[in-house]
């Protein structure tokens, strides 16, 4: 992690924090510094800059954990397992954050903390997978066995995620953008016309949104880099003793 990334993270995060909170939401935005009003979301739309990146990092962390898990299986290098487990630990943290921010948003937007919408189901499953991953790790003895079997479990559990992320939201009725809904007049299930579900971001919101994604991703890799190096040092000092 060299200084370039740290400075970039500082600049991006500052802009995201300011630009994500300060600009007012108005009916007809005239200047670049005003966000358009989305019926049904209003001021609550701003949480998207912080909620979506956490959900995104939950998935990225899982992919990183699995990537290093597979690398461990190929090369049997114990440091790869440390990278894998520290990515998974961060993934669990971001998964909890995504669940909490999501359900707070759901409370104020849809009326209850939890709805079993397909996306809510899939983040819940990811939470369960992370939980099961750590439960499995604590039940296995021996460094080598723990690394090998938890890597395999991460692969097996990953195979079910395409069903949750890509297939279920399109088969089931939901509240998130891109979901299906029931037409109140005819009772048919169809692609939704609801402004929240059809949600398209304005260009200035989109800029802040992608800046936020980048900033959070850099933040993740920074923390991950620190945690797996700490694990490596702990491992080395244990060996020297």
């Amino acid at each position: 992690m060299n200084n370039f990334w740290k400075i970039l993270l500082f600049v991006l995060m500052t802009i995201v924090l300011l630009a994500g909170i300060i600009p007012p939401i108005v009916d007809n935005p005239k200047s670049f510094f005003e966000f358009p009003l989305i019926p049904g979301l209003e001021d609550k739309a701003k949480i998207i800059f912080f909620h979506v990146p956490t959900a995104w990092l939950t998935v990225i962390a899982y992919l990183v954990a699995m990537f290093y898990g597979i690398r461990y299986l190929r090369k049997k290098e114990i440091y790869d397992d440390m990278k894998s487990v520290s990515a998974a630990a961060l993934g669990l943290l971001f998964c909890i954050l995504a669940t909490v921010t999501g359900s707070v948003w759901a409370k104020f937007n849809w009326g209850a903390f939890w709805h079993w919408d397909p996306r809510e189901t899939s983040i819940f499953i990811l939470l369960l997978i992370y939980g099961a991953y750590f439960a499995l790790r604590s039940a296995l003895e021996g460094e080598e066995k723990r690394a090998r079997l938890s890597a395999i479990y991460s692969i097996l559990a990953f195979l079910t995620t395409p069903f949750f992320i890509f297939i279920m939201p399109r088969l089931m009725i939901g509240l998130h953008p891109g979901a299906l809904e029931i037409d109140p007049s005819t009772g048919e299930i169809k692609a939704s016309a609801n402004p929240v579900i059809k949600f398209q971001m304005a260009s200035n919101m989109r800029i802040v949104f992608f800046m936020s994604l980048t900033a959070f991703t850099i933040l993740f890799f920074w923390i991950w880099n620190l945690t797996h190096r700490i694990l490596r040092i702990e491992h080395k000092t244990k060996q020297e003793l």
Partner: protein
Amino acid sequence: MNEFKRVFYIFYKDFSSELRMRFALNALIMFVIVAVSTILFAIGSERAPQNVYAGMFWVVVFFSAMSGLSRAFVSEEERGTNLILSLLANPISIFLGKFLFNLILIFFINSIIAILYLTLFKDFIIQNWNSFLLAFILGNIGIAGSSTIIAAIISKANVRGTLYPVLAFPVLLPLILMLIEITKSAIDGNPVNDVSAEFMVLISYDVVMLTASILVFDIIWRD
């Protein structure tokens, strides 16, 4: 000895030792009866909406699979026979033999559950048998496949009993959700075409899980 024979012999070994001792089977049948009667007591004389039964049917199936299917590899590990087994056959035949045994076991147990449900619950009436039976077969294959590979992971761990459902639940959930959807539609009597997307998910799940299990089993098995 060719591969198919090896698979069959491993299946036959488990099958005949099961027939001799019946430790898994007797306990499982009792488990099913206890679970179904708990639901009967919970409902009492009231009438639940019909599609609740679809969910409760697969809940009982899931938990009986969780209590019965882990035996496959745990028993080898407990008796210390896994090294001899790996001398006699290659990992793929071991996995397929165990899978076959679990498949037969789960078919048997789930048929009992289905018969109990159909006779004891007045409102559990399947109107579209084609889609229910197809879902039943595909679902059993998927449950047997995923449970067998998770059982192989579990057999190496310390706390086996409680960990098994914890590990298997997220892996089995897409399957269970689709099965519940199809069963609901079978109870309502909708044609198979209405749930064709759900069937495609079931088939792809079965193929993906079995292929992946065969690929990774080698790594789990060799210590």
